[in-house]
């Protein structure tokens, strides 16, 4: 097909979009809502992934000390832990300091009062391994210490987070597919209206010897524009929501790793625009098939 033909094709595309105004609006809104939800899921998944990866890299182990441990045992325990192969540093965190740390992370300065004056935390040693490869062996060794009640380290949480990521991915994928299907159906319906309105024109084009590409392009462009408009709106909404969520998370749950807007916008733009264009193209494909059987 000749490039010059787009001079005819472009106006046709916009004319039919305007002529079916309400259908165009409905299709764009469906794509916007679908892609908005899909983009939010996308942002959620990449952030949970980032948290899991950050934890995987974490070389710290928390060893919680039993309530009934005598004071004189603390020093011996400290040196025993330090003697474990692969341990780089050991830091004692009293239950009071532990509570202060948590309060700091959640942005609540008076957590003790909020908990009714009872501090549920035990004393703890925060152990730093020389590398993440030593974490599992140190944790195993710590289990044999009778003074230690519980051990927490990244791997457990990582496993849980990855399980959550998988669930989110599967749930998100199902949701995305359903939304995509709804969007494709709406785009198809919108373009079908255009095709029906221009049925006579399409037949005349066929009889006069127009190529399939020439007949098809105005409809493909219509689908692409519908997809693009929906994607741009969804993207704007999702990024604004993300911006506000970032502020909220920084204030109230600062221990979470949240990727800044500057780190996510490029992939998110690619994701949303790519999805919008793909949905638009799929939506324009089906209504034409029947008319192009030369």
């Amino acid at each position, binding site marked *: 097909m000749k490039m010059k033909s787009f*001079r005819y094709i472009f106006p046709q595309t916009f004319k039919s979009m305007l002529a079916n105004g309400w259908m165009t609006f409905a299709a764009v809104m469906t794509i916007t809502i679908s892609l908005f939800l899909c983009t939010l899921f996308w942002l959620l998944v990449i952030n949970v992934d980032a948290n899991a990866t950050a934890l995987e890299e974490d070389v710290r182990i928390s060893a919680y000390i039993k309530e009934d441990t005598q004071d004189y045992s603390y020093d011996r325990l400290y040196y025993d832990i330090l003697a474990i192969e692969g341990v780089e540093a050991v830091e004692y965190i009293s239950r009071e300091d532990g509570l202060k740390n948590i309060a700091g992370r959640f942005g609540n300065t008076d957590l003790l009062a909020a908990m009714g004056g009872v501090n549920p935390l035990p004393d703890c040693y925060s152990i730093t391994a020389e590398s993440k490869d030593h974490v599992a062996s140190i944790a195993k060794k710590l289990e044999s210490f009778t003074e230690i009640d519980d051990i927490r380290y990244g791997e457990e949480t990582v496993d849980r987070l990855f399980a959550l990521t998988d669930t989110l991915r599967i749930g998100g994928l199902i949701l995305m597919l359903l939304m995509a299907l709804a969007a494709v159906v709406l785009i198809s319906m919108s373009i079908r209206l255009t095709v029906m309105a221009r049925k006579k*024109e399409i*037949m005349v*084009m066929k*009889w006069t*010897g127009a*190529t399939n590409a020439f007949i098809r392009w105005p409809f493909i462009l219509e689908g692409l524009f519908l997809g693009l408009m929906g994607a741009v709106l969804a993207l704007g909404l999702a990024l604004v929501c993300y911006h506000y969520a970032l502020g909220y998370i920084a204030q109230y749950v600062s221990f979470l790793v949240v990727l800044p807007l500057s780190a996510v916008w490029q992939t998110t733009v690619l994701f949303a625009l790519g999805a919008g264009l793909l949905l638009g193209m799929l939506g324009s494909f089906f209504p034409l098939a029947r008319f192009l059987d030369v």
Partner: protein
Amino acid sequence: MLIQTVDLCKTYKNGLEALHNINLSIEPGEFVFLTGESGAGKSTLIKLLFREQQPTSGFIMISGKNINRLGRKDVVRLRRNTGVVFQDFRLMENSNVFDNVAFALKAVERPWEEIKTRVPEVLEWVGLAGREKENVMHLSGGEQQRVAVARAIINDPLILFADEPTGDLDPNTSAELMKLFEQINAAGTTVVMATHDQDIVEKMQKRVITLRKGRLVNDAIGGFSL
């Protein structure tokens, strides 16, 4: 030989046999009427000839090529060498005369400069000079059919197929339109026209192929039979 049909049969999905063993040939430059009662198979034959439909069996040769075995590109090429006119004109109602005719050139991606000069030429040829900007719905039936003819011939087709082009027109308008078809034929285009208008066929004294219940029953110069 420009057109040849060989053992052409067409049976629709509902079991209706529209055409049965049609064998005919048409030479370049001929003017041929297809006549017969309603349901005789005239329109089906026209549709098969411009490859709107495919036969159930048999085949059609145009310019030495079996049009039923053409690839997409060749179908496009075939259609650029044929024009079609219908009883109901099939014009774009919301467009003016110029756009309706220019549409056929745009569809085959001719340059705009050519479209600007060619459309007025053809409109003059069909007797609609200066009417470019008029909406087609404001024209009379005869004038609308002239627009349809202009659209069909603007690509200089080798063959012009017409399916009951005068079916919706009064006798005087029909006679004028037939003069136009004669002129087109005189300029070298082969014309194949389906009609059951007895007056037209008898006046023109051209070759008449008569179909009855899907079978070819007569092929002669002049005269009219159903």
